[in-house]
């Protein structure tokens, strides 16, 4: 009796699979041709090579062995530990892979998780390349002496302030801290003059951030560098009193947009990305750039480095050179609204305020320390 129901189950699964497949047979090809300039269509950028083959997509129970073998870490692929937005790095990987006939495989995670992971893996790390959204993660790996020197040519392609003087990694993109606010809740006169103002009791319950994310932790690292440990701890303690925690920068922006909260500390490109797309999560909001070299005007640098333990250093060096090339930087401009480190402009990112005009504070990306910041944030109860 159970075999009958098992058969029925198998039939149901197969039928469901068949229906979906016939629906997608045409959709798959449409997807690969669609361009991706906004957040909402970003999956097409992340889609891997080729269109689905009907045979392989049928859910059958005999599949596990073969699929497991196919998906095994490809020994010939360049392994990138990627903490950047997946669609950006995937676009780099696809372009580079196509041009050089190389396979590039991503493992996705977040900055400090992967940095500490690489340190735990030590010299046996499977990673060849490490890419982050912010520089503190790069510094952890550099301090553990696990990075290979980046080629001089790659370093000199990028303005010097975006890479550490040691040459252990290279800046590949930049993002500016902003205060996103809801003008229905805050008039221009009521806006904070400095990021430090948000510690004031008058801001209690009125601003948001995503303290568990590497982005916000990088901003705090900059504050730590600019204002010192004591001031940062005091600020974080007041923050704990005043702010509301969300998970992710887009979620913060969405809450501000919905009027749940007056404002939030995020990076600029979440807002530009949404504005270029549906405006769904940002249409009721505006951005405040703090400027005046305020800690809140901090421009964070995304880095890329090559692991000393990599057995594919040549390909890895080539990959980094590609990332900072004009073509690689145009991918930054077209995929996310982060600043290309060359401040490259394309049709897509023309609306961005010039990077040089942001009046960001001078912070050496190589000095930003994350472990002290995470400890502090744990101590005051933000983590």
């Amino acid at each position, binding site marked *: 009796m*159970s075999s009958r*129901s098992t058969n029925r189950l198998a039939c149901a699964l197969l039928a469901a699979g068949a229906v979906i497949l016939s629906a997608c047979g045409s959709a798959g090809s449409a997807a690969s041709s669609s361009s991706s300039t906004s957040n909402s269509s970003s999956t097409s950028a992340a889609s891997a090579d080729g269109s689905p083959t009907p045979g392989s997509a049928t859910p059958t129970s005999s599949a596990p062995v073969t699929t497991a073998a196919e998906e095994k870490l490809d020994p010939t692929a360049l392994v990138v530990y990627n903490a950047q937005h997946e669609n950006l790095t995937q676009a780099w990987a696809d372009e580079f892979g196509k041009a050089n006939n190389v396979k590039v495989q991503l493992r996705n995670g*977040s900055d400090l998780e992967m940095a500490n992971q690489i340190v735990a893996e030590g010299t046996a790390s499977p990673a060849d390349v490490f890419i982050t959204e912010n520089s503190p993660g790069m510094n952890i790996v550099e301090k553990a002496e696990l990075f290979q020197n980046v080629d001089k040519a790659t370093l000199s392609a990028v303005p010097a302030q975006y890479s550490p003087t040691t040459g252990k990694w290279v800046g590949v993109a930049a993002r500016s801290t902003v205060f996103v606010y809801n003008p229905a809740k805050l008039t221009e006169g009521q806006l904070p003059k400095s990021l430090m103002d948000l510690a004031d009791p008058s801001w209690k319950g009125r601003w948001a951030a995503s303290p568990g994310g590497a982005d916000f932790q990088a901003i705090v690292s900059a504050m730590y560098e600019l204002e010192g440990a004591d001031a940062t701890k005091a600020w974080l303690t007041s923050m704990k009193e005043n702010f509301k925690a969300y998970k992710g920068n887009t979620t913060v922006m969405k809450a501000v947009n919905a009027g749940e909260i007056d404002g939030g500390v995020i990076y600029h490109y979440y807002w530009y990305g949404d504005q270029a797309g549906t405006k769904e999560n940002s249409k009721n909001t505006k951005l405040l750039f703090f400027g005046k070299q305020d800690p809140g005007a901090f421009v964070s640098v995304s880095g890329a480095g090559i692991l000393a333990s990599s057995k594919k250093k040549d390909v890895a060096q080539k990959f980094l050179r590609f990332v900072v090339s004009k073509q690689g930087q145009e991918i930054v401009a077209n995929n996310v609204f982060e600043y290309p480190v060359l401040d490259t402009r394309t049709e897509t990112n023309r609306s961005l305020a010039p990077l040089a005009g942001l009046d960001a504070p001078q912070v050496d990306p190589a000095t930003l320390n994350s472990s002290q910041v995470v400890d502090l944030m744990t101590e005051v109860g933000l983590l």
Partner: protein
Amino acid sequence: MSLFRGAPPVFVVLAAAVALLSLVPVAFIVQSLVQAGPARAKALIWRPRVGELLLNTGLLTVLSMAACAVLGTACAFLIERTTVPGARFWAPMLVTPLAVPAFVTSYGWVSVVPGIDGLFGATLIMTLAYFPLVLLPVAGALRGTDPAWEEQARSLGLGPVRTFRRVTLPQLRPALLGGSLLVGLHTLAEFGAFQNLGFSTFTTAIYEQYQSTFASTAGNMLAVVLVVCCLVLVAAEFGLGRGPVARTGSGSPRPHRRVSLGWWNIPAVSGLVAVVGAALGVPVSSVVHWLVLGGRAVWTSTLWDSAVSTVALAAGAALFTTALAFPAAYLAVRHRGRVSAVAERVSYVAGAVPSLVVGLALVTLTVHYVKPIYQTYVTLFIAYVVLLLPRALVSIRSGLTQSRVELEEASRALGKSRLVTLARITVPLASPGLAVAATLVFLAAATELTATLMLGPTGLRTLSTRFWSLSGSIDYVAAAPYAALLIVISLPVTFFLLQQSRRAAGR
């Protein structure tokens, strides 16, 4: 092996190995406490943030369990004991929410009511996602009890409400407690559903520590508290679970007389419509809404690749876990003794450990000590086995209990070897239980998120990991087809389970 008279030695070894494997996460917790040392452990555990999380998590767990108990029992009573119109239609509709992963329910609600958050929002989502876990056993108990009890109570002058409270409810106690325990453990382990809810629990806080530090002492200490919470729940259920119900024989199972609702049909039906609408209608219509908005562009090849990986992984997990659970279940039923009882209980307790902690334990262990299986399918499958073994054990046990040992003895007496007997008598007779075990594991593995994120090989993408990353960046449109496929895969599996549980209950 005098402890297992006549038990196949291979089974003894396998059962012991599986029990030891299940203990790895618990051992990891103890080890990380020892490693941190009393001073550091105290500093990281006795701090306001932990109190805050304990309050959040505790309130959420208690409220969700209570809400699920009330909602699940009420719905079960309506469909099993009243004349509510369309009971045959409502019964499957009320179980179908199990085919919608909690993170999809959450996504559905957040898209419809963007402001939903905090304790209220989290409780709502947990209740809607998990009340069938109470409904199923309670409905079974309501069907299975002998009506004579209630009839006697009524004949002795008790009104219907007091009869329910004093006679029916005590009989439901084991089912109600068991179901509520499952709700509690699911709530404590839940992670994905809180992503867009602005609500912090231990799991979200542990994950934030993991994101900020990889596997660190601060995260491990939070995991210690979380595991203690889980064990407290298991212990509480164990302590309360022995009901005062006792009788000789099982009575005569016959249909209960259904309560005629009369005008109460209106609120009853409206209530059922509301529950099904909230638990099923909202998430499904949100998914459809985003699918329509996304059009053809969202059906990418990555989606299909993830779907194939998901089904393959889940099938592999189902196969492995069922195969590994069989020896332990076999020993527990056929060679009952102290050791087999301990081995079985160990697996249950270990199964209460949330997948995030299992992930943390295995990542730490493999990266430092077992490098060859680090980031491989081996580690991922070990995690699935540890997490899902208890589900498989329960079903295989009941399957084995129902197949008669005399048939095996006859086979041996007729000269067939132990292996042949096993293959031709025991396994076929226990096959319904094995099928249910495999299906339960399949369903859970197909929607597993945290362990897969932390342990999976580089390049692995499953429907739930992709859904998580897309919905995390509020790309609801791109996330929709992943949610849709998760539901499509889970739906037939859920119905198969429902059918099997009915059959087991003799209907």
